[in-house]
C-alpha cells in the first residue's frame, strides 16, 4: 500500500503536539503507512494570505509538488487551516489561468514538478472513507468509559470546500465516535468559528468566542469537546481558567483531538496519545483513561 504523504504544519510541532502523537499512533494501529513530506514549508495560511496572495499560492504549491515528487497520491493535512490553503491553491490554480501559470512557472524555476492533482485529504475523511465505520467498530479493544462528548468541527475544514463533510451539518466525527461507543450530544454550534487567531490579536473577543462554544457544550450535557483542528483545540483548551475568572462559571472540561479517542479505543499505547498535553479537564482525563491503564496494558 502506498503511504499517505504527511504534512504536519507548524502547529503540530508546537501547541498541537498531542494531535501529531495521537494521529501517528492511530494510523500505526490501523496499519496505514504514513510518510512525512521532506522539508515541507509553511502552508501559506491566513496570515500569509493577508499580505501576498500570489506567493501564498506558490508557497503552498511547493508542498504539493514535494508530495508528488515523493510519489504520494494522497497528502494528509490534519490542520484545518493547512487543509484549506492547500485545497484552495489547487482550486485557484485550476480556475484562474493567471495564477495557474504563475504557480507552474515558479515551480519550474525551482526545479519542482508541475502540479498534477495529488489529493489533499484530512484524517477525518480518510478514516471515514478509506477505513470505514465497520472496520473501526470491529477493531475496538477498549470500551469507552469517559463522559459524553460534543463533536466540534470548526470552520475551515468544512467551508468553503465541503469535501471532508457537509458544510452545514457535518456528522462524520459523530459517526466515528459512535463506532467506538463514545456517546455524543447534539451540538448545534459544531461549525461556529472558535475565534481563530483573534485570541492573540483581539484577545477579549477571541476568548468570548471560546466561551460561547464551551458554555453551549456544557448546556447540551457534554463533559468534553472533541476537535479536528489544532487551533480549535488550543483555543478551547487554553483559555478555560480565564473564562472561569471572568464569568464566574466552573467550566473545566477536557478538549480532545478526535484521534486521541479513536487511538485509545483501537488499542494504541496510551502513552503515545499525548493525553498529558491537556491544559484543562486534567482530572477527568486522569479518571477516564488512567483507571484503564492496568487493563489497557493487557491489550497492548
Amino acid at each position: 500500500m502506498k503511504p499517505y504523504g504527511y504534512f504536519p504544519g507548524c502547529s503540530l510541532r508546537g501547541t498541537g503536539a498531542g494531535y501529531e502523537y495521537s494521529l501517528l499512533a492511530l494510523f500505526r494501529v490501523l496499519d496505514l503507512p504514513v510518510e512525512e513530506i521532506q522539508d515541507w514549508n509553511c502552508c501559506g495560511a491566513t496570515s500569509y494570505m493577508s499580505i501576498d496572495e500570489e506567493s501564498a499560492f506558490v508557497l503552498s504549491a511547493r508542498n504539493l509538488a514535494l508530495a508528488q515528487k515523493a510519489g504520494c497520491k494522497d497528502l494528509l493535512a490534519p490542520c484545518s487551516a493547512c487543509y484549506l490553503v492547500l485545497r484552495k491553491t489547487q482550486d485557484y490554480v485550476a480556475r484562474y489561468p493567471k495564477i495557474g501559470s504563475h504557480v507552474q512557472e515558479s515551480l519550474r524555476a525551482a526545479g519542482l514538478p508541475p502540479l498534477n492533482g495529488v489529493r489533499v485529504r484530512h484524517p477525518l475523511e480518510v478514516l471515514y472513507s478509506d477505513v470505514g465505520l465497520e472496520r473501526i467498530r470491529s477493531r475496538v479493544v477498549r470500551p469507552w468509559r469517559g463522559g459524553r462528548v460534543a463533536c466540534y468541527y470548526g470552520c475551515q475544514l468544512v467551508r468553503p470546500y465541503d469535501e471532508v463533510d457537509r458544510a452545514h451539518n457535518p456528522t462524520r466525527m459523530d459517526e466515528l465516535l459512535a463506532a467506538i461507543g463514545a456517546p455524543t450530544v447534539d451540538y448545534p454550534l459544531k461549525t461556529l468559528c472558535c475565534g481563530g487567531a483573534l485570541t492573540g490579536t483581539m484577545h477579549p473577543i477571541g476568548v468570548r468566542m471560546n466561551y460561547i462554544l464551551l458554555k453551549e457544550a456544557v448546556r447540551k450535557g457534554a463533559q468534553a469537546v472533541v476537535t479536528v483542528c489544532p487551533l480549535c483545540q488550543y483555543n478551547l483548551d487554553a483559555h478555560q481558567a480565564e473564562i472561569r475568572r471572568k464569568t464566574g462559571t466552573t467550566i473545566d472540561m477536557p478538549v480532545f483531538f478526535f484521534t486521541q479517542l479513536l487511538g485509545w479505543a483501537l488499542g494504541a499505547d496510551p502513552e503515545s496519545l499525548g493525553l498529558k498535553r491537556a491544559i484543562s479537564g486534567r482530572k477527568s482525563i486522569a479518571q477516564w483513561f488512567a483507571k484503564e491503564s492496568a487493563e489497557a496494558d493487557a491489550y497492548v
Partner: protein
Amino acid sequence: MLRTLKYQREADPEWARQVSERPGCEGLFSCLQCGACSGSCPLSIYMDLTPRRVIALVREGFRRDALSSMTIWLCASCYSCAANCPRQIHVTDLMYSLKREAIRSRLYPPRLPAPILAQEFYAMVRKHGRNSEFWLVLRMALRSNPLLLLTMLRNGWDLVRTGRLSLRRERIHGTSELVALSGAGPRPGRAEA
C-alpha cells in the same frame, strides 16, 4: 469617523471595478444586500460595519471607509458568509483582498495587532520557510503592545508545563529553493515588510 451621508464625488467607481476583477471578488456587483453574510457572521456584532455594509461601500467605491474599517481585522476567515451567500459571492476572499490593500496603503491603526501579526508571519515564513509560534507571538507583542506579554504569561506557563511550547526556530533546508520560487523567497536588497 464614518458619516452616514456620502457624497458622490468622494466615490471612486474605478476602484470598485478593479476590486471586482480580483480573483475571488468577481461577484461584487451581483450582491443583493440581503445580509445573509452579516447574519451568519459570528463576529459581526463586534464590527463597526457589518460585512454587508462593507460590500455596499466597496461597490460604490468608498475606498477609504472600507479599508479603514475594523471589520476586515475582525474577520477570522471562517467562511460562514461565503457558505451562506445566495449569490455565491466569496465574501471571505473579498475581505482578504481588502486586508492586503489596507496593509499596503497603511490604512490601519499603527499598533493594531492583527496586521502586525500578518506582517511578522509573512516576514518569518519568507525568510525561513516555516513559522515558529513562540517567536511569532513575541514579535507581534513587542511591535504592538509589550504589555500584552504580561497577560500571556499564564497561557505561556500552561504551554510550558504541558510541553507544548517550543523555542526552536523552525526553518527548512531548501531556503534556496524558496528564492527560486520567484514569488515566495526572500527578495534580496529589500527590507521585509
